[in-house]
């Protein structure tokens, strides 16, 4: 089972029917304050679009994420600023969908719809938190995670955060994978290692869990605690109306360790 599903299941308090099976929606009780709305893009082997069956963000996923986020904005349109519910993106996306149908319909616009919704939520005062539990690659991460006000990631060898997957990165930049790996030791933004990524200024927390593939209840507790803290920082630092994406958090990147 994909990490996008296992972590969604571990954190979901109450799940909701979604418009599309590849976009999972739930509430997550963070223990204080309004429940957070969880969104996760999960594999759907029966997806009507064959190129989006492995958890990629394609056409349906773009609309599904946008609808899920915009619904939260609507639900909270009348509540006090500090009561707007947090939105949490569980991120394990291999990429955008690579397909001809996707291009014909204009996948860029469907991904733009998701970006638009997430950014609108953030500017409206919703804490938007991304929790990277697996892959966070290319258009998938742009659509689902990179408009967050805070980005957390598991401190785990299998986390991959990059502009494109490794074989393509090597091919397009005319290198072997070995050459790319060697270069990434000195040119840090080329690295696929989450610990190196965390030094670049976009990381608001690395979570040391005991079992990243099958989170224990302690792991889920750790994640909930980190999300709760991230929500607090987001509420304290959200400059409503402007772009809060920035290089360094006021509190600075920090690490958390599990008990395991």
């Amino acid at each position, binding site marked *: 089972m994909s990490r996008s599903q296992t972590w969604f299941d571990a954190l979901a308090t*109450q799940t*909701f*029917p979604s418009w599309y099976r590849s976009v999972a929606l739930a*509430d997550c009780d963070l223990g204080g304050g309004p*429940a957070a709305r969880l969104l996760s893009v999960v594999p759907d082997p029966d997806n*009507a679009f064959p*190129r989006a069956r492995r958890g990629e963000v394609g*056409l*349906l996923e773009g*609309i599904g994420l946008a*609808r*899920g986020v*915009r*619904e939260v904005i609507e*639900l909270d349109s009348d509540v006090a600023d500090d009561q707007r519910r947090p939105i949490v993106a569980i991120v394990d996306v291999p990429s*955008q969908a*690579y*397909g*001809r*149908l*996707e*291009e*014909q*319909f*204009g*996948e*860029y*616009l*469907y*991904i*733009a*719809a998701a*970006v*638009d919704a997430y*950014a*609108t939520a953030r*500017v409206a005062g919703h804490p938007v938190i991304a929790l990277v539990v697996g892959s966070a690659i*290319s*258009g998938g991460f*742009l*659509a689902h995670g*990179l*408009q967050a006000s805070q980005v957390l990631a598991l401190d785990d060898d299998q986390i991959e955060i*990059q*502009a494109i997957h490794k074989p393509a*990165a090597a*091919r397009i930049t005319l290198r072997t994978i070995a050459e790319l790996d060697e*270069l*990434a030791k000195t*040119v840090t*933004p*080329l*690295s696929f290692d989450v610990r190196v*990524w965390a030094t*670049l200024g*976009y990381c608001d927390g690395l979570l040391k869990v005991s079992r990243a593939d099958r989170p224990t209840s302690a792991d889920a507790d750790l994640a909930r605690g980190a999300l709760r803290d991230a929500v607090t920082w987001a509420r304290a630092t959200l400059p409503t*109306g*402007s*772009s809060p*994406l920035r290089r360094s958090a006021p509190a600075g990147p920090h690490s958390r360790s599990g008990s395991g």
Partner: protein
Amino acid sequence: MSDTPALVTERPELQALWHRRSFLELDARARAFSLLDDGTGQEYCDPFDRIESPWLEPQGLVPQADDGVVVVKGRLAGEPCVMIGIEGAFQGGSIGEVSGAKATCALQLAARDARAGQPVSAVLLLETGGVRLQEGTLGLNAVAEILSALLELRGLRPVIGVVTGPLGSYGGMSIVAGLCTRIVLTHEGRLGFNGAQVIESEAGAAEFDSSDHALIWSVNGGAQRYATGLADALVLDDVPAVRQAVITAVAGGVPARHRSEELDVLAARLSSGDDQARFSLTGLGIPPAPSPGPGAAS
């Protein structure tokens, strides 16, 4: 102007072609100045400021003193406007840390001016393959920041995307096009997320044959995008024609809803009979209409 041949004089429909000044043959800087009112353009962070990418030289690549993005502020039909031109001839028009920051700052400053009562519109001249892979995650985040800044300005003033080719607009930067208030294309402009070669290498030639140029143009081409309602103007590759289309697009102001907010329209496109016929989707079982959303837990 050279002597006009008799053929052109006799056939008025050829005159626009004969007299045109190609826009797509201009570099990014010339494009930006050519669209603004004569003599009003001023470039910011120009090449003599030498704000270069620090990431290229260690990889054996020659940096460029403007990092491939040209920011020129001036007037368009008398109104303040900032042009953000991407240079397709440098690293495939890719966006890195520095070029991305230039575009983001230009959009943020325009938004700041707009909030202060001095409305500045923005025009993005998109000639780009997307994220600069030589700058990895910093390029990816740079694009995310452009998207955020574009959305900040879009509610205040029009942000117009211009895609004339020859490269077109692809990759993460095509999301920029998806967020623009309006899109101006030429027949030579292409717009899409994944290029044919990328799809072919990911999914095979049966999915997308990158040697089939007719197929590429029928999917990503300017005429196709315009015909299917994804662009607002399709113009001749001609400086005055592009400029007029951009002036008209800016004059349209800020709409009540942008394309990227019309979720009902986007969903309907996937399931309508017309589109099913056009894109051979019959039988794929695309959900026809939005089902009820999640319960309103409050």
